[in-house]
């Protein structure tokens, strides 16, 4: 899928936000529900979907993993990371002074490639970067 520059205000949803929204027991669940009412043009990426489903599969099981997958695909555009985003993520991974996983670096690359500034995440590490954390 081609996913062009996001000129309007959009918000990227990180895996921890998706998990918090799905799991009622999660300490950030209420916050995620509250934020969901105000987010403009939310979207996520295939790497993040991979993380959310893998964690759900491991902790809750297949039925729940399918359920969160269906939730995501029915409600969010999913940015498919291409060569350009991958190369940008690799550069960020090489150079970042922060304690980021490669997927976190891919998230920053997707934000850059799509011109998005806002990210809904409960990962405090992102607050050390120049993106706007919505939490």
């Amino acid at each position: 899928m081609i996913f062009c520059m996001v000129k309007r205000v959009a918000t990227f949803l990180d895996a921890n936000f998706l998990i918090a929204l799905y799991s009622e027991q999660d300490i950030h669940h209420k916050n995620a529900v509250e934020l969901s009412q105000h987010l403009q043009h939310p979207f996520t990426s295939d790497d993040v979907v991979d993380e959310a489903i893998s964690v759900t599969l491991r902790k809750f099981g297949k039925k729940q993993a399918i359920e969160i997958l269906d939730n995501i695909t029915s409600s969010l555009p999913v940015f498919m990371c291409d060569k350009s985003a991958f190369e940008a993520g690799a550069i960020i991974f090489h150079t970042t002074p922060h304690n980021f996983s490669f997927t976190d670096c891919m998230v920053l690359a997707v934000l850059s490639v799509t011109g998005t500034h806002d990210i809904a995440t409960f990962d405090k590490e992102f607050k050390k970067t120049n993106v706007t954390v919505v939490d």
Partner: protein
Amino acid sequence: MVQVTIKDVDEGTFRELKAEAAREGISVGKALSWAVKVWLSEMQKPRLSLLSWKTFKGGKGTQYLSEEIDDILYGEKSGNIS
């Protein structure tokens, strides 16, 4: 057909578009028109609200799951960046 000038296009993405158009044997304009159509159909697809998600009650000891994703997937962060 219109002639347009587009500013602030991501260089890497445009390079890929040109390469893909060349591989397919079509003009950049045709490739771009097709890409925009695909993008528009994706963005205009009707979507459910995030508030309509089927949620899960979760299990015991999962209240910190959203904060433990990296630990679960990649092991605990060592904090060593060298």
